């Protein structure tokens, strides 16, 4: 795979066409029908959750949210391959991967409602909180990769970044360190053509992103990120390659952010309807559904029923999140240090005194 799709050849790994037809049997991954169906369902769940979250935000029930709409095949593929013991070091647009790792939707909601608990991921093993400063997380992935090698563990690190993120110095340093250390890290760049309003051609003059692997002497591959099978194949082989001690891999997943950057963004300001339509035909769910239908594994009716169920489940979790309750004062203090300095203790006491005074003075109308 790495040879045939050497980035220097400027070829993108694609296995399924826009109509869900397998056009590249040679690289078709070895994957059960049931597994494919399961993957589709998870992608559908993610999309349904994504849609509903955007509505919740419109209703003013959460503060902000970065939609995954159009990019679901990427996390969808990782979700099928990533194991409990593997690490996930996310950016912030990989909902399907979070859920696969053991995060609950409720937690995802909590974060965007403004609770730190939303990145605590109680039941998820080896899942680092989202990193807001773009590309900075990639270095954490490499450090974790070092530990895996150091302790000779059977693990791999999956880490994500956007096309915009490849411009940051930390992207370079991470790939370079990973190359020197031969760290078992799979770097997945979701090239969704935009960094907020900035189009990919203004991010870099290189021919795509996979080619950047040459700068680090590591493997790279450009993949149709809207093609579930291509992503599955690429992630699977990359993980095996990395785990075998060969070093990191850079996967460029070519996709499109069909939604807004976040719920406070309006893409119509900076891109055309034509462009959006062009990408619409490549929609990852449409394509995989066409495949499933052609294999008689799935019907539109199935989808309707599923979406109904999903919506209930999502709403249930959302309401749970909404009822999470209040945020105690001590929570802003107690996680800053392992052993809380006197200063913080005193500041907490001071605040409590002030609150008491406020209550009293309001009651007595002072």
């Amino acid at each position, binding site marked *: 795979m790495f040879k045939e799709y050497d980035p220097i050849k400027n070829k993108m790994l694609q296995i399924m066409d826009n109509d869900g037809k397998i056009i590249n049997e040679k690289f078709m991954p070895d994957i059960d029908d049931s597994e494919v169906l399961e993957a589709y369902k998870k992608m559908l769940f993610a999309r349904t959750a994504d849609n509903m979250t955007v509505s919740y935000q419109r209703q003013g029930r959460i*503060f*902000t949210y970065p939609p995954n709409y159009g990019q679901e095949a990427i996390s969808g593929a990782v979700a099928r391959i990533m194991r409990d013991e593997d690490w996930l070091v996310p950016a912030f647009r990989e909902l399907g991967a979070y859920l696969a790792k053991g995060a609950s939707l409720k937690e995802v909601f909590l*974060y965007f*409602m*403004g*609770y*730190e608990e939303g990145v605590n991921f109680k039941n998820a093993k080896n899942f680092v909180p989202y990193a*807001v*400063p*773009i590309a900075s997380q990639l270095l954490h992935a490499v450090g974790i990769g070092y530990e895996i090698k150091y302790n000779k563990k059977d693990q791999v690190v999956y880490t994500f970044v956007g096309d*915009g*993120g490849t*411009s*940051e*110095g*930390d992207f370079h340093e991470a790939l370079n360190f990973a190359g020197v250390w031969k760290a078992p890290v799979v770097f997945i760049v979701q090239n969704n053509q935009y*960094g*907020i*309003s*900035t189009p990919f051609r*203004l*991010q*870099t003059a290189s021919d795509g992103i996979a080619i950047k692997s040459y700068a680090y002497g590591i493997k790279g591959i450009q993949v149709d990120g809207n093609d579930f099978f291509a992503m599955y194949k690429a992630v699977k082989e990359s993980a095996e390659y990395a785990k075998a001690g060969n070093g990191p891999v850079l996967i460029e997943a070519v996709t499109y952010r069909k939604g807004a950057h976040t719920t*406070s*963004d309006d893409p119509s*300001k*900076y891109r055309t309807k034509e462009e959006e339509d062009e990408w619409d035909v490549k929609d990852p769910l449409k394509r995989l559904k066409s495949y499933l239908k052609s294999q008689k594994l799935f019907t539109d009716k199935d989808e309707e029923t599923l979406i109904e169920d999903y919506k209930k489940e999502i709403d249930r979790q959302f309401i749970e999140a909404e009822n999470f309750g209040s*945020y105690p*004062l001590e*929570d*802003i*203090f107690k996680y*800053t240090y392992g052993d809380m*300095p006197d*200063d*913080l203790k005193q*500041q*907490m006491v001071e*605040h409590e005194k*002030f609150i008491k*005074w*406020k209550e009293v003075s309001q009651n007595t109308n002072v």
Partner: protein
Amino acid sequence: MKKVMNMVNAINDALDIKLKEDRNVIVYGEDVGVEGGVFRVTEGLQKKYGVERVFDSPLAESAIAGTAVGMSIAGLKPVIEMQFSGFANPAFNQIVSHVSRMRNRSRGKYTSDMVIRMPYGGGINALEHHSESIEAIWAHIPGLKVVIPSTPHDAKGLMIAAIESPDPVFFMEPKRIYRAIKQEVDEEKFSIPIGKAKVIQKGTDITVVAYGAMIREVQKAAVLAKKDNISIEIIDLRTIYPIDRDTIVESVKKTGRLLTVHEAIKTFGVGAEISSTVIEEAFLYLEAPPKRVTGYDVIVPLPKGEHHFIISPERIYYEILRTVKY
């Protein structure tokens, strides 16, 4: 001629005036071009002045600052945006090692007299890293000037002054009041000197020093304190460095009491410098220990916890009472 403006309009207006007047002025940063910035501060400027003068850069803050160093050396006047002050962090090395030092290093042959603008501060229900207030850090770097406006009028005048300054200016915009305060602002060009604080309310019992979004909160606290007949002198610092010690000291010599208010954390913050100044220069006039009302020494909480952190007019009023009754 005057026009009603909020702070976003006012800064946009200042940039517009300088872009029109001086072809060396160049505006760039992440999403400042077509989009006009995530807070729309640069809206419309690319259309007016073209993509060579107002443009989107790749996503890399060290490069935004570092290329601006080169541009200023070559004679341009870059006005760069950091999308949020928390994202100026990757540019720390370029700013500390070069922006602030090029003049000194080259004994005046070259300068890096750019303006580095950024929204800063809390109170808008934002995610992590979007609510920081680390002005004390930037103000601790010799060679930089740090400006924080509290009104649309000041924002415009100070931005004009910043662009015309021979030195690099950190221009920190309190995003919480980007659109919250509207005001009649002169449409013509005018500037407000950097390095001068302003007494915005005269008083006799206590001096309260603040800046940025906190000014409004102090004003509200002053209203609360009225019923106790406490007369408050409010100083809007406007510039964090060079800090206007004279205006503060003169005021405290009169009132005998000082309270500094900032949303940044307390320890090693701006308030410490102000208290120290007053004690060094007005020791014998003090009737109570200078105090600080500040954010607590923790990481700014996510929105649901922010109310514990953010400073309310009541908390300021409470500390005013404690100081006055000392």
